[in-house]
């Protein structure tokens, strides 16, 4: 296990270095410099500048420095724990990152809180009785919810719950401080898709286990069905879904972009979206590094869970 962690950590560092270099290279083009100038001065403002004044302006903003020099500078700062400053928002990146990650963590917490019990229960119920009416209802519902794009769910939920019934606010900007009601729409949007996905995976794992030799033997031995399921089937069937839940953490980081942007929830996804659109390079760098770390750690957790839960691997 320790070897695995060390190997993953080294790999993660290597990837982080490559990715940050790539990002710097991407944002070192004339096209990007012009974009930055337009963002700051506007189309009408930049049109008043002569060629020399334009270059002077770039110089003043430090955009003309050779990119290796800027990269080295940034690396040095990061090594000292300074993640830089957001150009767009004029805030330390660390602050921005902390707040947005906290907001996304809250969202993710509630997603998992709803996801795990609902999806596992439905998946197990469906997989236990493969081919029954209950199974068919659950399976059909699951495949349909995983087929609706989240943008459509988001708008539809807004129409019904926010503007139609007026139960919750249409947007989750939380201008009056934190409260749960504005969280409902993003939460439901995420849950609807994720539950469908996890139900399908759990059901597949469960049917596989139910068809296996040792369950059949147990049933033949005359053990009551609920004992067979609780004692033998569940544990084996849950290996895959549980590892998937950890991987889902990483998937959430990508999914939340759409949901957070649509509902204007001040989380990690929206920060990432804003930074990528504005070309806020320092924010983007930090956010990407966090995303990579989350990806690697969730992979590790999922591996660990697999090792821990799966008797065949554990006892080897």
């Amino acid at each position: 296990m320790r070897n695995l962690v060390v190997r993953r950590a080294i790999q993660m560092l290597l990837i982080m270095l490559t990715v940050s270099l790539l990002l710097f290279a991407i944002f070192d083009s004339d096209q990007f410099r012009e974009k930055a100038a337009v963002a700051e001065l506007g189309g009408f403002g930049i049109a008043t500048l002569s060629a020399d004044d334009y270059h002077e302006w770039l110089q003043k903003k430090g955009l003309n420095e050779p990119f290796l020099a800027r990269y080295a500078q940034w690396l040095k700062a990061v090594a000292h724990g300074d993640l830089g400053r957001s150009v767009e928002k004029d805030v330390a990146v660390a602050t921005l990152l902390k707040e947005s990650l906290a907001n996304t963590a809250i969202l993710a917490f509630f997603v998992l809180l709803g996801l795990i019990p609902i999806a596992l229960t439905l998946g197990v119920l469906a997989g236990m009785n493969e081919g029954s009416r209950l199974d068919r209802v659950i399976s059909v519902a699951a495949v349909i919810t995983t087929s609706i794009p989240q943008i459509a769910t988001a708008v539809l939920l807004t129409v019904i719950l926010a503007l139609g019934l007026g139960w919750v606010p249409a947007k989750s900007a939380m201008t009056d401080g934190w409260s749960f009601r504005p969280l409902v729409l993003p939460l439901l949007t995420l849950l609807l898709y994720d539950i469908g996905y996890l139900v399908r995976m759990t059901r597949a794992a469960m049917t596989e286990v139910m068809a296996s030799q040792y369950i059949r033997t147990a049933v033949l031995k005359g053990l009551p069905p609920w004992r067979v399921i609780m004692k033998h089937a569940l544990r084996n069937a849950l290996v895959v879904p549980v590892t998937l839940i950890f991987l889902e953490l990483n998937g959430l980081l990508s999914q939340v972009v759409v949901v957070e942007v649509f509902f204007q929830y001040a989380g990690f996804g929206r920060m990432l979206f804003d930074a990528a659109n504005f070309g806020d390079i320092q924010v983007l760098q930090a956010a990407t590094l966090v995303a990579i770390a989350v990806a690697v750690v969730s992979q590790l957790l999922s591996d660990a869970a697999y090792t821990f839960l799966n008797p065949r691997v554990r006892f080897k």
Partner: protein
Amino acid sequence: MKAGIALLLALIWLPLAGYVMFRPALGALAPYLLLPSIPAVILLYGIAVRSWRESRVAVFGVTLVCFWLLMAVTAPYLPLLDPNKPIAPFVAPGGIKHGVLFLLGSDMRGRDVLSRTLWGCQRVLVWGITATSVAYVVGAGFGLIAGYLGGWWDEFVSFAGNVLLSFPVMLLFILVLNLLGQSGFNIIIAVTCSSAPVIMRIVRGLALDARSRDYILAAQTRGEHPLWIMWVELLPNVRGPLIIDACLRLGYTTVAITTLTFLGLGLQPPDPDWGLMIKEAATAALLWKYSYMLIVPAVSVSSLILGFNLIADGTREMSLRD
């Protein structure tokens, strides 16, 4: 048989892609271009239903997908209103205004929702299928290289794949589209960047597994070129899991394309497009009485994705039974 299916696919995809991507350049040819595709879709549907007949789920999926394919190739010949022409705004479904019947209503700018929906499937299908295919060619190519050649090739390709995979998917899309500009062709690149590494991993695993099999060894002793062996011997023998993945991936790509348009990053208006229709509805049609503007494209795009998902499910089910 295989050659026949390939021919049918080409007959559908080539004219459709040409029609969507280069319509202005086609000039007088454009109106006739899609005619041969109509029988091709019907024929393809027949073949697909036969080969998936053991799975009801898959047949249903095939029906959904083929329905949209058929709409995509017949849209220019159906008696539809001009999808971009504003006639009368906010007409409810089934309503008649200015002597025009709006079966599915008209949108906030007075355009016919039915014809926008039917025309809209062209863009999603063409760019979705093209992007997925390109991702497959690239991903499978690199996967074979990594899996079959191994060694430093494997190390390098796998690392590059890991680098791409470590970006959150949305970030990758935004970066590519902001950097290269927002167009269908760049969506292909963006989708390739995000999907190819996953495909590469799958193919690499399959290739590693298959490398030691007899038929490869036999080919090697015949003295065939490794690249030839990879394309002709390896790939067809690992196609089962790939078909399932491809169907799921088509679904993801469809979601991605509509989502990108929704975020204002993907295909640009004015041509009708499901993502765009949802976006416009999200601005102006937030009331229950206007929600048909939202529900129609939402149901359309969901049914297409559902079709892809069901084909994947059905195929998996059949492969488990064998």
